[in-house]
């Protein structure tokens, strides 16, 4: 795994060196640093950003993605290359909330407008580095609470639930878990277990089957993303408990639409990923055009999606 990352980082760093000084026209250049493009969510986000660039036509977009969720080196290399290229703005979805602080500080010092979206950089790390940077992004915790509340409302007080977590150490995974915990507390749910399935379908399927053995009376599941929710639903089917256990997810990926429709899933949360990067670019361009610098947390839209929203 390690090798593949190094190779990928090398390749990406290589490709970045090519387009130096290609912005002869006066359009501002925005460097977009994305997370894993193997993830449908970020892939769609990138496509949204590209459509946005074509639509606005008043800036040049340079996008870089990573090979996997945890490939931090690639992001750092990308930021450093953008500094060398003297882009006007960097819009970044950081893979790590601490490791990216020093290179972004260098970018800000180099006079580049930096917008942080998707996952917030760590407050303490920012403070220590003397970096003040706003965050444009959805409230993962709030979103998870929306889904959790929907589940609590459906099941009622005292219902037995479990949480399927994302990657341990990932900020959005931690935020979503906190949101689910908020719902557990507010809805007075009985939380039986909370474990990670590393965002993955097969692992979630295995994990939930085993949880179900340990706790045959589970009534509800809160999955930190939809890929894992898919595995959970399949495990419920295999155990012959279809309709007896409610599932909520997060992300609103296309593959869960049929499940929502068949009521195998109660709800998911849409954080409008497709527009998220484009929104962040808009904010960066606003600052570049002489607008007020961003401050604090600029929250983006989130919405609960249920069977009513699926045609």
């Amino acid at each position, binding site marked *: *795994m390690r*090798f*593949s990352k190094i*190779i*990928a980082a090398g390749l990406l760093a290589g490709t970045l060196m090519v387009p130096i000084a290609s912005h002869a026209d006066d359009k501002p250049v925005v460097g977009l640093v994305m997370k894993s*493009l*193997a*993830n*449908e969510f970020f*892939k769609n986000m990138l496509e949204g950003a590209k459509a946005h660039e074509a639509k606005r036509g008043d800036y040049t977009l340079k996008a870089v993605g990573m090979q996997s969720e945890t490939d931090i080196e690639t992001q750092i290399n990308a930021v450093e290359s953008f500094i060398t290229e003297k882009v006007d703005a960097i819009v970044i979805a950081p893979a790590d909330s601490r490791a990216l602080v020093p290179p972004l500080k260098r970018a800000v010092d180099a006079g580049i407008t930096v917008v942080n979206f998707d996952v917030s950089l760590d407050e303490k790390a920012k403070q220590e580095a003397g970096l003040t940077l706003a965050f444009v992004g959805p409230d993962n915790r709030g979103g998870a609470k929306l889904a959790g509340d929907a589940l609590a409302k459906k099941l009622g007080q005292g219902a037995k639930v479990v949480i399927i977590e994302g990657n*341990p150490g990932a900020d959005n995974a931690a935020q979503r878990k906190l949101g689910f915990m908020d719902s557990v507390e507010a809805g007075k749910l009985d939380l039986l*277990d909370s*474990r*990670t399935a590393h965002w*993955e*379908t*097969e692992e979630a*399927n*295995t*994990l939930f*089957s*085993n*949880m*179900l*053995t*340990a706790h*045959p009376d589970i009534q509800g599941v809160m999955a930190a993303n939809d*890929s894992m929710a*898919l*595995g959970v639903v*399949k495990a419920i*089917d*295999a*155990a012959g408990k279809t309709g007896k256990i409610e599932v909520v997810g997060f992300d609103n*990926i*296309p*593959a869960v639409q*049929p499940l929502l429709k068949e009521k195998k899933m109660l709800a998911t949360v849409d954080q409008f990923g497709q527009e998220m990067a484009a929104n962040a670019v808009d904010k960066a361009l606003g600052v570049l055009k002489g607008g007020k610098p961003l401050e604090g947390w600029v929250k983006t839209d989130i919405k609960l999606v249920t069977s009513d929203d699926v045609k």
Partner: protein
Amino acid sequence: MDSTDIDRSPAGRADFAAVSKTVLREAGIGLALVVLIIVFSVTTQHFLTASNITNILTQVTINLVLSIGMTFVILIGGIDLSVGSVLSFCAVVAGTVMTLPGLDPALAVTLAVISAVIAGIGFGLFNGFISAYWAIPSFIVTLGTLNIARGAALQVTNASTIYSFPAAFNAFGSRTIYGVPVLFLIALLLVAIAWFVLAKTVFGRVLYGIGNNEEAARLAGHNIFFYKIAAFTICGALVGIGAIIYMARLNIASPIIGIGFELNAIAAVIIGGTSLSGGRGSVVGTLLGACIIGVLANGLILLGLSDFMRQMITGFVIILAVILDKYRERLTKA
């Protein structure tokens, strides 16, 4: 204690010794599995229930199928790091075929199965040919293939998940016969076939020979090139079948599935007593190895251990299995 019935001819005694050594080898792994099962049965409430056993068998299936293929490759002294990525490529190819508009569901599934196996065979041929023709260690070749297949899967699907397979196909993946998942029975059938090929055929004999002493096998007139390619191709075909099993079980195909599957498959083969340097081991051991991994994963969750503890214990068990194998080797050599 009556000694008159005992075959006292040297040949008879030696045969008995040979058989008992073989039994001892496999029994060692089997014993470890039994111990694990007993421990979990005593310490957890639900381990030894019909539905949990069904679960374990379901969870073991994909790894088992990949491990069978991996056994062939490791027996000739190779390794295939690409199985996880190739599985995802085969799955997205099969998923694309299966969801082609306007196809009769039965035909769509048939074509999907064929295309998955062909895709797997294609990557197997590629791995085998490159490592045999240019004498490049398969570790390196398959490390390359790992990236190629993953990239190809992402390219083909544009990173999106494929779903909405025919309902009968989706239902098939959850079907059980007397509590035994049909998918597991398929894997068991594959184990039986692989066992037969390795233990009874000339082909299997020569594979073991190559793993032990490639030069001796070559000088005995065997075409090493062919056998090497064949081992990787068999592995590839099994990855294709594994992809179909994945899809039947989870009803999706995605370019990001199967990450790290190769390591589980290698672990199952090694725990099963197959030597990483080739030439020694059996697919029955691999079956037991895969079961040990599955039982461990299941039992540790039922025990309520934290995720991180589980991961550590799984790692220790892999190392422990290999250490035990060293002792078993010494025992059976004497």
